[in-house]
């Protein structure tokens, strides 16, 4: 119940601050782009749109949200209520997941894009959105300013996005298998590309492991720097 209330609060907050309007505009633009592209480029374009923007939107916004809440001492007040830290964090990642999935669904509907292996795809999109927001939260816990957040988060963000080169068939190395983004790209791309079952299972396992590791790490960082700041 508390979790639902927290998610509701976060979604309202995002709505009030224009996220839904911004993504409505972007969703329409992405649909138009997909409709204008030649048939053979639609699926790769969808994968890149989801990978670089829609699934990563939590990563982009979470820094400023946490900074604003910390600046207004909201986090301090929140943690004297019965709300638990894990509920606070879950509400953050689930509220962004809602916006990501809504936007992704509308883009695919508007662009008439579908394909095979839809369940693998939905799992990939969901886990990626959760993991990206968790990544953002890790850096948001200690950031001092928005620019500070972006420097640190984007630095690591760019680094973990390196498997995009493998996706574009420009450069590949077995090292990329460690990156969660490799798994994301495979599962977002299953709609139109035949991957082996071992590739898909490996990607699912990779995203699950990253999710567990990042969840624990984020919890520790928030416990130390946000709930009990020195």
């Amino acid at each position, binding site marked *: 119940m508390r979790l639902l209330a927290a998610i509701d609060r976060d979604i309202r907050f995002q709505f009030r*601050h224009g*996220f839904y309007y911004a993504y409505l*505009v972007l969703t329409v633009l992405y649909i138009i782009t997909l409709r204008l592209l030649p048939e053979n480029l639609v699926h790769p374009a969808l994968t890149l749109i989801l990978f670089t923007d829609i699934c990563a939107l939590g990563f982009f916004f979470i820094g*400023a949200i946490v900074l*604003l809440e910390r600046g207004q001492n909201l986090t301090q007040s929140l943690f004297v209520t019965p709300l638990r830290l894990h509920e606070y964090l879950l509400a953050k990642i689930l509220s962004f997941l809602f916006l990501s999935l809504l936007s992704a669904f509308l883009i695919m509907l508007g662009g008439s894009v579908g394909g095979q292996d839809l369940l693998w795809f939905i799992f990939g999109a969901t886990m990626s959105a959760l993991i990206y927001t968790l990544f953002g939260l890790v850096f948001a816990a200690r950031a*001092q300013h*928005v620019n500070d957040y972006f*420097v640190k988060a984007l630095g690591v963000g760019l680094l973990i996005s390196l498997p995009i080169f493998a996706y574009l068939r*420009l450069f590949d190395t077995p090292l990329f298998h460690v990156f969660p983004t490799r798994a994301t790209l495979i599962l977002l791309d299953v709609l139109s590309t035949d991957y082996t079952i071992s590739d898909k299972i490996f990607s699912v396992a990779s995203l699950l492991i990253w999710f567990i590791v990042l969840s624990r790490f984020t919890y520790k960082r928030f416990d130390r720097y946000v709930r009990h700041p020195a």
Partner: protein
Amino acid sequence: MKTPVAVLARGDLRLIARDSTLVMAVFGPLAITILLFFLPVIETLIHTKFGLDLVPFRLFIVSFLSLIPGMLFAMIYGFIILDEHDEDVIDFISITPLRKAGYLTYKLIMPMLLSGSFFLFVIYATSLIQLNLIHGIGIAIMVAIEAAIGTLFLVAFSENKVEGLAFSKVLGIMYLAIPLVFFWNSSWHWISVFLPPFWIAKAFIHSQASSIWIWGDLFLGTAMHLGVLQYFLRVFLGRQ
């Protein structure tokens, strides 16, 4: 005695160095410059790997990428203003001799100077296209004003940094004017005439074609940029 601007600049530099904004301010534009330096190599690589010839699109790629640093500087200064707004710094400054107008002037001049000079550096250091110097300076002026427009766009309509971030997503749409001008082979591309980068794209094309229309682009484009800037300025000052 230090002038208020010197004090502000020192404060900003300390802020930039401390919270590593400098890394983004340097890394972003530097990455674009490196990308452009290696553009011929990338073109060859893509041509051999995918059989796709990018050379005919070089003018588009250069004009599009050369505007990215301006957008980055606009965002960096926009976020500094939003942070300072959320921390009530602007209210404190408004009662100092610098006043709010002085503060804003300084905060807008910095992204303008950085964007204009970086644009000229990128265009003439990479020499990927031959751009007449007078035309280049004219376009650089528009690029500089566009950075101030970007900064003001983020702060004029937002209550705080979170809303500013949502606006930064929408800011990117402004640059859609460039592909529209280059690739929409219909007079319908004029619907993007109110987006400032429209005039920069037109200026690039007309300068390369040695068309007389370049002067119209530079004159009308600068006027359009100044008009948009003044509108955002009025909105921002009206809301304070």
